[in-house]
C-alpha cells in the first residue's frame, strides 16, 4: 500500500511539472516522469511475494511465477513512450527555430 502511494507521488510530481513550468523542455521532462510512474504502477500490481520471473529454466525449483500479462502491456507502452517523446522533441526543435525561444508565454506574443 505504501509503495502504491509513493508511485502516485511520483506521478503527481510529473503532473505538477506539466502544469506549472514555462519551458517546453521542462514540460517534456514532466511527461516522461509521469509515463515512468504509470509503467511502474502496472508492474507493482503484478508482483507476487516469493515469485520468480515468468521464464522457464531447465533446472527450476521455485514454481509460482509473477503475473505475465501486465509485463507484456508495459513492454508495448515503453516503446510507445519513446515514439511520443521523439515526436515532441522534433516539434520543440522546430519551435525554437521559428521563435528563437523555448518560453511558452512568448510564443503567443510573437506572431508571423
Amino acid at each position, binding site marked *: 500500500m505504501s*509503495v502504491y502511494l509513493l508511485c502516485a*507521488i511520483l506521478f503527481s510530481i510529473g503532473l505538477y511539472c506539466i502544469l506549472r*513550468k514555462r519551458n517546453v*523542455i521542462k514540460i517534456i521532462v514532466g511527461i516522461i516522469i509521469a509515463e515512468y510512474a504509470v509503467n511502474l504502477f502496472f508492474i507493482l500490481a503484478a*508482483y507476487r511475494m516469493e515469485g520468480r520471473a*515468468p*521464464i522457464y529454466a531447465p533446472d527450476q525449483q521455485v514454481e509460482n511465477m509473477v503475473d505475465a500479462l501486465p509485463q507484456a502491456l508495459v513492454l*508495448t507502452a515503453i516503446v510507445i513512450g519513446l515514439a511520443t517523446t521523439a515526436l515532441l522533441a522534433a*516539434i520543440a526543435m522546430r519551435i525554437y527555430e521559428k521563435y528563437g525561444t523555448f518560453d511558452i508565454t512568448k510564443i503567443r506574443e510573437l506572431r508571423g
Partner: protein
Amino acid sequence: MIELHILLIFMIIGAIIAIEVKDLLSSVIAVSAVGLALSITFLILKAPDVAITQLVVEILILIILIQATLKRDLPFSTTGRWFLNTLIALAFIATFLSISYICFKDLPKFGYPILKVGSAYLREGLMKSGATNLVASVILDYRAFDTLGEATILFTAVIGVLSVVRRIGRKKVEEKIEEET
C-alpha cells in the same frame, strides 16, 4: 521489501531535482538517472524483459533530448500571478492524491494478486505456444493484435517526425531541399 522503498524514494528525489534545476542539460541528465533507477526496480520486481527494454529506450531518449537542448539554453524569470497559480496547482494535486489514497484501499494487498486472466497464461503457456519465455508468448501469440497496433504507432511516429523536419519553401537552402526530399 526495504530496497523497493529506497529506490522509490531515490526516484522521487531525482524527479524533484529534475524539475527544479534551472539548467536544461542537468534536468535531462536527472531524468535519465530516474530511468536507470526504474530499470533496477523492474529487476527487483522480477520483470527482466521490461528492465532490458526500459534501459535501452532510456538511453535513446537521453541522446535525443541532448540533441534538442544542446546550445539552446535560455534563462528567464517568473512573472505574473505566480503565487495564485501555484496554489491552484497544488490544491488540484492534493485532491488527486487523496482520492487515489481512497481508491488504493480497494486494490488487493501488495504481493498477493488475484490473477484471474493471468493464471491461464501461466498454466498452459508453454504447452500451447511452445515458447519458454511466457511474456514473448503473450505479446506475439495470445495478444498479437496489440503488437500490430504498436507497430502502426511507431510507423506513424516516424512519418510524423520526418514531416515536421522537412523544410519546403525556404529560398536560401534550395540545394539542400533537393538533397533531402
